[in-house]
């Protein structure tokens, strides 16, 4: 008995070492090229369709309770006629040292062996701690059990659950798609190929601004893009070590009239 406890304790110690994910087979990463993103919002609807996100209606939207897992933020600088507008899609950054994971009292959000920040809906008791700790404001809370007007419910994706009242939810990098790809790869006794897994937002992005893949594979497209000199990560000074890498937008400073 004591031996088992010791082994478990050792195992746990392994998991809590920063950077432990580097030992694992995959480290899922998303690269967002802000110079390609035009802010169209296709990813927002694609995510809704894939992940059974409920529509909450105007009144709930006013209270800031919309359940979208990805959003396009828009920043405006300057005054007429020298307006600069910048767009950035923001989803769960799947931080490798995630503040939300520290806070959760019931271990509903934890780090899995692929470097993903995972949310277990069945464990969640709705303390809201994770959302409070998250510096990126990407966690969404189900204030009610939302209903789908029939027959809109026939569209619901059977690969993942519909969340109920009192549960926190967030972007999962479309873990259901990762699972399917892993199963297939296992059946065929191989590794997942680069580009085989595409979350719904990446799949639909018309401009190709979003790219998804395994950072542990040095030849993958995300690994190549991660070496881009334009690379940065969101609020990097917080040391959350996000799994989403942004590439800087190319944009002249100052009023556009003076641009060459």
């Amino acid at each position, binding site marked *: 008995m004591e031996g088992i406890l010791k082994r478990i304790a050792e195992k746990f110690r392994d998991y809590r070492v920063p950077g432990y994910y580097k030992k694992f087979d995959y480290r899922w990463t998303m690269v967002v*090229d*802000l*110079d*390609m993103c*035009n*802010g*169209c*919002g*296709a990813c*927002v*609807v*694609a995510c*809704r*369709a*894939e992940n059974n996100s409920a*529509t*909450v*209606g*105007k009144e709930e*939207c*006013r209270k800031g309770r919309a359940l*979208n897992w990805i*959003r*396009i*933020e*828009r*920043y*405006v600088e*300057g005054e*007429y*006629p020298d*307006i600069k*507008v*910048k*767009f*950035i899609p923001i989803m769960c950054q799947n931080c490798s040292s995630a503040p939300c994971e520290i806070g959760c009292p019931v271990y509903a959000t934890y780090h899995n062996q692929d470097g993903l920040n995972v949310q277990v809906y069945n464990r969640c008791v709705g303390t809201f701690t994770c959302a409070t700790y998250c510096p990126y404001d990407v966690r969404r809370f189900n204030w009610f059990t939302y209903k789908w007007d029939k*027959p*809109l*419910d*026939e*569209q*619901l994706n059977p690969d993942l659950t519909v969340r109920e009242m009192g549960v926190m939810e967030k972007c999962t990098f479309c873990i259901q798609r990762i699972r399917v790809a892993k199963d297939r790869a296992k059946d065929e006794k191989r590794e997942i190929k680069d580009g085989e897994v595409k979350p*719904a937002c990446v799949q*639909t*992005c*018309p401009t*190709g601004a979003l790219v998804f893949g395994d950072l542990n594979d040095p030849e993958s497209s995300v690994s*190549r893009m991660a*070496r881009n*000199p334009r690379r*940065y990560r969101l*609020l990097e000074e917080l040391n959350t070590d996000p799994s989403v890498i942004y590439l*800087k*937008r*190319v*944009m*002249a*400073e100052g009023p556009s009239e003076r*641009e*060459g």
Partner: protein
Amino acid sequence: MKRRDFLKYLGIGAGGLGAGFVLGKASNPPGAKLIPYLIPPEDVIPGVANWYAGVCTQCNAGCGTIVRVMEGRAKKIEGNPLHPVSRGKLCARGQASLQALYNPDRIKGPMRRISKGGDFTGISWEEGLEILSGNLAKLDKDAPGLYMLTPPLRGHLNSLVNGFMAAFGSPDYFQYELFQHRNLIAANRLSASLSEIPYYDIENTKFLLSFGADFSSTWLSPVNMSYGYGRMRQGGQGKRGRLVSVEPRMSLTGANADEWVPARPGTEGILALSMAYEIVSQGYYRGADGGAWKSVLARYRPAEAAKITDVGEERIKRIAREFAETRPSLAIGGECVASYENGVSGLVAVNVLNHVAGNMGIKGGVVPNSEGFVEGARRPDLKTDRISTLLKSASEGRVKALIVYNTNPLFTAPKALDAGGSLSKIPFIVSLSSFMDSTTAAADLILPSHTSLEDWGDDFAEPAVGTPVYTMNQPAVSPVFDTKGAGDILLAAARGAGGRVADRLKWNTFEAYLRESWQGLYKRNRAMASSAPTFDEFWSRTLQNGGWWQEAEEPRKRAVYVSASGAGPHLPQSPSRFEGDEKEYPFYLVLYPHAGHFDGRGANLPWLQETPDPMTSVVWGGWIEINPKTAGGLGVKEGDMVTVDSPSGRVQLPVYLYPGIRPDTVAMPIGQGHTEYGRYAKGRGSNPLDMVPAKEDGISGEIALNSTRVKITTSDMSGEMVKMEGSTKELGREIVQTVSPEEFEKMPKDAV
């Protein structure tokens, strides 16, 4: 009782009970059979998805799609990765089209109006088709007065409708939709000898000059062009392409531009021509007819144009030189330019600019597509096939019967045209729409058609991609409600009418018609015939791939030429006119299609209602965009309700303070303000078309949306605008980091 007897009686009793139960259940719905999953339906494996290829019908781009179907239900729609237009991608509206299929407010079966002005009552399909054939049979054989109104259809449904109308001896087939690019077609016909919309090769261009073309959200072919935009910026080889946007209201495309040029509304054509003048006079033009161009363009010198357009002379010259020097460059003229009263001439001006800069018919410029090839299909005659012509005929009582399919003029035509009043004079209107939109609500008979995910069909993308794209649509799921395909309804009506009509339309189903038509295509088209040994194989391959298209080789070279003598007479003589006195109505009104609701058709999909607008983040309602300085002068702040008056009408909307708009201009999205159209769309905001005067472009017949001035007064009406954004300022957080173009040039490129 002996033990043996007891068992015997027990057995009989149990057997009787069982038999009674079975008989009772079986006889309850007569003929109903319960088939166990031991004998599963074909191609259904629980938990395993099937993907069916089709075409998106949320706008006219013609994107190829694939639909994920599990146990007979559509779960997700994605771009068809093989399709040359969508390239595996879809926009927000395409993604949301599943909610059209499963919309709770769809018309669930045929209905007829009990009496004029009364309510609808559900009927059977037999009864509905009988009413339709009966009314068609009553029509005069020589002058039938049968009118048909559809959106601009392109595939074989178009040729079937033409065949249907020809069989009835009626020439009155109209195509109407708010954004149907008639101006673009007209401008290309007049100036560039192009009968189709060409492919604007954004992907390979290095300098994109957009005149109000918001291809990022709605214009022409948003998915394909956004793909091109991404490649132009980063994905392609060589230099990063630059984007300059000319428009009075910064659209989503303008927001992504490197430079935004807020020209005065209605003067964009003149601005384009002043750039063309600069290019010709500086000797960049390579053609032999430079002299002719110089004299045609002499009226548009940058110095004078600067005063008209409110863009500095030096700026015009600088952009013009850059446009000519950067190879290849491309100018596109979009909805904003096309929606003025002189929309065609503005777009002709853009063609001229492309021509003098040498962008016609080159890679990275304007690439011609091949001509239309569907036998029996036809394009609208720009002279006669106008919504105003149809409404005039209706008000004069010449329309005896009108068949409407999937177009909603009662919402999308300016109120000043009084479409409602005209349609009320038609004795018999039958609507084939899937939704209770305003026009369908005014019908006498409703024969609801399938949505595209339940129906057969095809589409011929326009613009294609330099090579023709034939897209096939097949039913992905069985009908959700008691509906029929639009083609099947027309064929059934023709059968019911009997006589020569039935003889000419002998097909039993639209599927059979489609298959036979494609067999004809296969026989005539050599490239198609060589792709598969038999038609059956070709057909199944087409269904599997979602259509047929040639491998994207080098785009076919076809000379496109704009002549000074041809384009000259169609150039804009003066800025476009706006109704209303400048003193009384101080603001130009600019209308644009909402990114999610387009011309209003997306407003019944809750996903689109709840998706924040890219430029304002407003959800579930409409708004009016006012420059913050102007709003300060008016004494209104964000969220306040204002009354907007034009000489033609009035709407009331909440204010959004929009920094990217000229102080003398206000803008509104089209899409909200439905009085019908289901629970998600009804009664949200106002329809800005209520203020638009009844004006159309003289050449093309396109509705002139941007043709009025408005005044703004505060309103005491209550209303609330819900926006999802907090601050639009970064407040030093460096969320969207940037590098300057100079710095970017110095960065090593091999790492990417």
